[in-house]
């Protein structure tokens, strides 16, 4: 008999909402029919009295929480607020970021026999492979080729591993994103920081290789932290955007794999800027690649020039312009991330 009553509710005055995903149980209730009376069996009718005595507005028992209207600020203002909130999130969660970086460091190579030594061995072995292929088979005549290769491979390895790891950082922690409320922006940032720590440890390999090329060691190497800072800001801004994009479309990581490979070859890692055709147009286009600027700077302060001439100062103007642009990009990236952050728990 009750089912008949339900049907009556569904057809007479109420158009049932299409709940196509759920089996039709004849249990639809229209808006406003939050069916305490209609659906409850009659013997529970008394309970509606208790409901009536309960406060129905927050202001009844918590005046300071009365629901209020908020005015929507303008476009620029909104994005500035998003960026600001992201920066505040990061600043206030420093400890969390530190723990997450620590956990990530512990996880990588945790199950290998020689553990952390791989961080130093990895770039050296990679450089040895390039040395065998290009130095011995293709007979490149670049002087002190090993040092040259390492000064480009180390920063590139940092960049590609940071992008690779960070891109999946939100997706990889999807259970966390769905279960714990916390500012998700700590995920890409701690992931990029973990790659940075690996890079810094990997610099030990550079020190080891320098033992073979002590005549190449100059004070210009003190510019290294500045160049690395520029690279860090650039990498972080790109990585944050990619980690958010990858949460929506997993294709992003597939595409980026190939973009990174192409990027590797158009950047002066296996060759120098001097190997390019001597045309101002080519040179200009080439230098639009931030990594052309960065890697040339690394080469200049670590290795010097092809004719064996001394190292010199890096192109500080180009580096500083890149730093400024990267800082802007970073703020935009943080704002974009904050903008889409609420959707993560919904789509992951």
């Amino acid at each position, binding site marked *: 008999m*009750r*089912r008949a009553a339900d049907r009556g509710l569904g057809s007479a005055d109420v158009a049932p909402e*299409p*709940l*196509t*995903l*759920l089996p039709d*149980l*004849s*249990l*639809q*209730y229209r*808006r*406003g029919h*939050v*069916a*305490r009376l209609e*659906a*409850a*069996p009659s013997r*529970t009718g008394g*309970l509606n009295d*208790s409901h009536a005595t*309960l*406060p*129905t*507005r*927050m202001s009844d*028992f*918590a005046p300071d*929480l009365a*629901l209020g209207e908020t005015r929507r600020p303008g476009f620029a203002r909104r994005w500035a607020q998003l960026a600001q909130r992201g920066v505040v999130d990061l600043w206030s*969660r420093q*400890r*969390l970021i530190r*723990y*997450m970086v*620590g*956990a990530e460091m*512990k*996880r990588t190579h*945790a199950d290998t026999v020689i553990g952390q030594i791989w961080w130093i061995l990895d770039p050296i072995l990679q450089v040895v492979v390039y040395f065998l292929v290009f130095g011995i088979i293709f007979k490149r005549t670049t002087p002190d080729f090993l040092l040259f290769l390492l000064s480009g491979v180390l920063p590139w390895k940092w960049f590609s591993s940071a992008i690779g790891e960070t891109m999946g950082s939100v997706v990889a922690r999807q*259970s*966390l*994103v*769905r*279960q*714990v*409320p*916390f500012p998700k922006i700590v995920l890409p940032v701690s992931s990029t920081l973990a790659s940075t720590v690996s890079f810094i440890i990997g610099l030990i390999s550079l020190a080891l290789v320098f033992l073979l090329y002590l005549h190449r060691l100059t004070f210009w190497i003190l510019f290294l932290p500045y160049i690395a800072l520029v690279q860090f800001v650039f990498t972080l801004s790109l990585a944050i955007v990619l980690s958010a994009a990858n949460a*929506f*479309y*997993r*294709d992003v990581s597939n595409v980026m794999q190939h973009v990174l490979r192409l990027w590797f070859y158009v950047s002066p890692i296996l060759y120098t800027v001097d190997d390019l055709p001597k045309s101002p147009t080519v040179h200009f286009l080439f230098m639009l690649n931030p990594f052309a600027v960065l890697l040339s700077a690394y080469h200049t302060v670590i290795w010097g020039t092809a004719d064996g001439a001394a190292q010199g100062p890096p192109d500080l103007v180009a580096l500083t312009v890149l730093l400024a642009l990267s800082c802007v990009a970073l703020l935009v990236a943080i704002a974009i991330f904050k903008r889409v952050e*609420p*959707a993560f*728990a*919904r*789509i*992951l």
Partner: protein
Amino acid sequence: MKNDARPSSGAILVRDLGVRYNLRLTRRTTIKGDLSNFIRRRDVGPQHFWALRHFDLHVAPGESLGVLGPNGAGKSTLLLALAGILDPTEGQVRVRGRVSTLLTLGAGFEMDLSGRDNIDLVAALLGIDHKRVVELTPGIIEFADIGAFIDAPVKTYSTGMRARLGFSIATAVKPDILLLDEVLGTGDQTFRDRSQQRIHDLMDQAKAIVLVTHDLNSVAEFCTRAILMEQGQLIYEGTPADTVDLYRQRGEERKLLAEREGGRFTA
């Protein structure tokens, strides 16, 4: 938190809450899939799904609310919205006081870190002040009662041990509002008794609790009020005993209905 001083600061108000999932972007979407659907103008079915709609609720301080309903009724979505993990698509959610979620015990654990390190990590994740974490740690370790394992990596723990540590962390912070999703009754009998004792303690301290469960006994045991949800809507609200009865009754009805439909199809 200034509110900590006042014991009666826990309160939840939900007004006309709606949470909509975008089916197009949910899970493993690729650009290709989107494109091919677009090009072929294939009818991809509903693009959105309202997990909750026009939902009103209030929980007063000291109350313990049980949430019942069949699978897919929107119970978990409700907890996610209360926890601030999901933003409401429409309507408003106001929660006063510190919320602690126990949606899954052991969420956020890093398998390679020790139990002790994980206490720090999860506490930082929940945004607990470091000084408080240092104060709370001995109590958390004692309550979890996992012995020397506290210094071993969490990956060596049994499921029960992980759940115990998770429960211990989530309740140690003395939340004003505790959200629980199917997590009671984990671990052995001793731990069950102790966790029930702790839930009772939290309730005595005038904290609000929202408990989602299919375990009808724990609703009767823990809750002061219960609601029944179906298809994203609140359909009944009353004493735990009445709500459990109605839930059972509707379950029977659904079973009969399914049997009848099934019979029609096979006939």
